[in-house]
Every structure is written in C-alpha cells, then in structure tokens.
C-alpha cells in the first residue's frame, strides 16, 4: 500500500482538491441559508479523502481553513483539525471502513473522538474555550454547572461533533456511492466503492 506521495497526488487527485475545498465552503453557506444547526463543512474533505487517499485529504482540509482564514483568521489554527479529518478518513478508506452504513457510523464515532482530542486544546489554549458561535452557549451551560473549562469544552464538543461528524460521513458515503464506476476507477482509492 506504501507507494509514496507521488502515487497519491495524481493529476486528477490534485484537481479534486479545489473541488473539495469549494464543497466545504459552499456547504458552510448552504447550512446558513437553510438554517441547519450543524457545520457539515468537512464533507468536501471527507469526500476527497475517501477516493483520493489520506494525503490528498489532508491537503484539502488544510487548504480549506487557509482559504477561510482570508476572511476569518480564527479559522487558521483549526486547519490542524481539518487536516486530521482528511488524514483519518483517508486512512479509514484504505482500511475499507466505508463499505456499509454500519461501518461508516463506527468510523464516525472514532473520528469524533480524534477530532475532539485535537480541537479541544486549540480551542481552550488559543481562544479560552470560546469560538464565537452557537457552541459557546452550550459550553457556558456546562461551565455554569460547575465543570472546568477543559471538561466543558470537551463535553460540548462531544455533543455537537458526534452528530456532525457521523452525519457528514454518512452523507459523503451516500454521495460517493452514487459516483460512476468509470470515474471512481480513475482514483487510487476509488475501487472500494465500486458497485461490482
């Protein structure tokens, strides 16, 4: 399986990166327009990671936050979280974790924990546990109930992230399954999603 970065970054995989980033950004807006109380903004990263592997997924995640930080610099430190999502989902894809709905949910649970372990320190150390969105309110409730800042951030993250990441993976899985075999076969990690 170890074929090096050059093997992963084929031309068509490279061309998928801008698409993945744009999907992430457009979903952030779509979620606002439809007033859906979730982020779902890593679906592009997950999609790229699933069919083009962990390293291309990592780049997609990182670039998403760099692009977002042009208008919102507080997104920049969380680039690490996005990169970890790309890496993890890509790795899961290699390990054939996305072959059924059940396995995808399990992958979502593991991903949630990884995401929280990476994002909680960033959120607490750099921003004192606040992010300036709805999750800050949830955190305030945990804090008011007498828990420390680390525990509050961790717990509020667990609540929101688990729903968000599991749902995101399921949506991505559904969409990848809809791609044509001919297209999937052009990507290094697409063969796990072929119908036949």
């Amino acid at each position, binding site marked *: 399986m170890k074929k090096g970065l050059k093997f992963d970054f084929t031309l068509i995989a490279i061309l998928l990166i801008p698409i993945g980033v744009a999907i992430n950004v457009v979903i952030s807006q779509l979620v606002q327009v439809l007033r859906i109380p979730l982020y779902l903004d890593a679906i592009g990263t997950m999609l790229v990671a699933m069919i083009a592997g962990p390293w291309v997924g990592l780049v997609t995640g990182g670039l998403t936050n760099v692009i977002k930080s042009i208008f919102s610099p507080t997104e920049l430190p969380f680039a690490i979280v996005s990169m970890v999502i790309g890496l993890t989902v890509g790795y899961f894809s290699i390990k054939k974790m996305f072959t059924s709905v059940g396995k995808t949910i399990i992958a979502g649970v593991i991903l949630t924990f990884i995401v929280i372990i990476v994002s909680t320190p960033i959120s607490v150390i750099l921003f004192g546990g606040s992010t300036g969105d709805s999750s800050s309110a949830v955190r305030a409730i945990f804090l008011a109930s007498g828990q420390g800042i680390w525990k509050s951030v961790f717990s509020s993250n667990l609540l929101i992230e688990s729903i968000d990441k599991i749902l995101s993976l399921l949506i991505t899985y559904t969409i990848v399954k809809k791609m044509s075999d*001919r297209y999937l*076969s*052009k990507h290094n990690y697409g063969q796990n999603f072929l119908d036949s």
Partner: protein
Amino acid sequence: MSFIQLKNVSYKYPIGKGDVLKGINVKIEKGGFYALIGANGSGKTTFCNVLRGFVPHFYKGDLRGDVLIDGKDIREWEMGELAQKIGFVFQNPFTQISGVKETVFEEIAFGLENLGVDVDIIIQKVEEVIGLLGIDYLRDKNPQELSGGQKQRVALASIIVMEPEILVIDEPTSQLDPRGTEEIFKIIELMKLKGKTIILAEHKIELIAEKAEQILVFQDGEVVMQGTTEEILTDPQVLEYGAALPQYALLGLEMKKRNWEVGQIPLTEQQAITTVKGLSHPKGEQVCHS
C-alpha cells in the same frame, strides 16, 4: 511510412465489459484532413484519445496493437512531448479553460508557460494567434465569463498557439449554435491551409462533406469503411453502419434509385445544384425541387 499508423489496435477500459476499439488498422498521412463519423458510442472519442495518448497514459486500461506517431509508439512518448506534437480539443467548452487565468490573453499563454517558453516569445505567439483567429475583442475578457462558442474558440487558440503538427478535434461544435459552429470550422480550415494534419470527429455531415478529404466510418468500435470523402459519403452502405449522409447525397442516391441520370452523386449544395441543372430526366417525370 505513414505519419500516424494504427496496426490491429484494440482497447478495453479498466472498468467495463469488452473492447471499445476492435482491431483498428488506420493510416494517416501528413497534412490530410480526416473526419471520423459514426453513431454515438461507436468508438470515435476513444479513437481520438488513443491518438492523443490519453489512452493508455491517462485512462489506463488495456491497449493492444501498435500506435505509431511519426514512427514512435504512443507508449514511449512523454505527455509533455505529445502536447507539442498533437493538439487536442474536445466537446465541452466549459472544462477546456485552465480555470486559473484572468484574461483570454493569459489563458492562451498558459500552454507555452507550461513548456517553459521565454516570456517575449510567448507574447509574440499569443498576439499572432489572436490575430489569426480574429479574437482580438476577447483578449482582456475573463475566460470564465465567455459564451460557449467564445470559450471553444479560446480553447482552440490555446492549443494552436503551441503549434502542434496534428490537431485531434473531438466534436467541437456539438454544444454550439450554427454561428459558433461556422466560426470553429473556419479555424479548422485555416489550420488545414497551414499544413496541419487534422483529425475531426463530427456529426455535422454537411460540413464534413464540404471540408474533409478522408473519412473513417466507425461502428461498434471498428473502422468499417475508410476512403475519400467522395467515395464514402456517396455510398448508401454508410447509412447501414449508423452514420449519416449529407442530404444532397441522399437526394442524388434517391434520384439514382429512380434511374435518373445523375452521374456523380452530389455531396455539397453547390454540386447538387449543378447535378440538378444538368439533369436529363426521363420522360413524363417532373423534377422535384426541394
């Protein structure tokens, strides 16, 4: 030896059942204008991709037989080398722009930048192509904001600027209106006059009858007929292979069927008029004017 030669070429995509090209034997001479005709899915596009080296370099799959470009097998060509040897233009105008350039001028320059040509020479060559194709009014426009026809002309310009000897053009007008189509054909003719070898897959049979010199008829992945435009486009056999004939040839064939003395079957409007004028029709029948 021919400029391009395919010997017993068969090809199968990595996913999919059976060969999409079956035992193709074709010779293409330098400076010729070859048209590929046949029903959708008959193998024209795959054939174009083989000539340009996208099969097997990009599409992978299983390519058998010999594909010789200028005597060298396609599998031995580098993609960069091929880009300079064979220009490739396809149907969709929207995916044929680089997507990173802000003006048409820069867009046309992209290929030469990739080849590492000196900036001064790039500017000179781009100017030349813009003048040649008469698209000066587009030069400062954003390529994203052009119409389909304009995009397609810019796509052609972007390939022509790299001065390939061979142009492989796959249904360039299928998404264009009649005016856009005409503009594209004007450019193709211009390239023919410049001595380029042209291989064009196209459905607009009237235009092919007027411009092409040689025709290859495709059916189910095979080249079922090949010959000069006059031979092929006057042969009713073409219809049985699922390809079309020009309406003027159909008229001529219909007249011949009724035992009228048509002589040469007409291909173009001009020839049809001549044929009808010189017609010595049998007694008692009226010539129908269509």
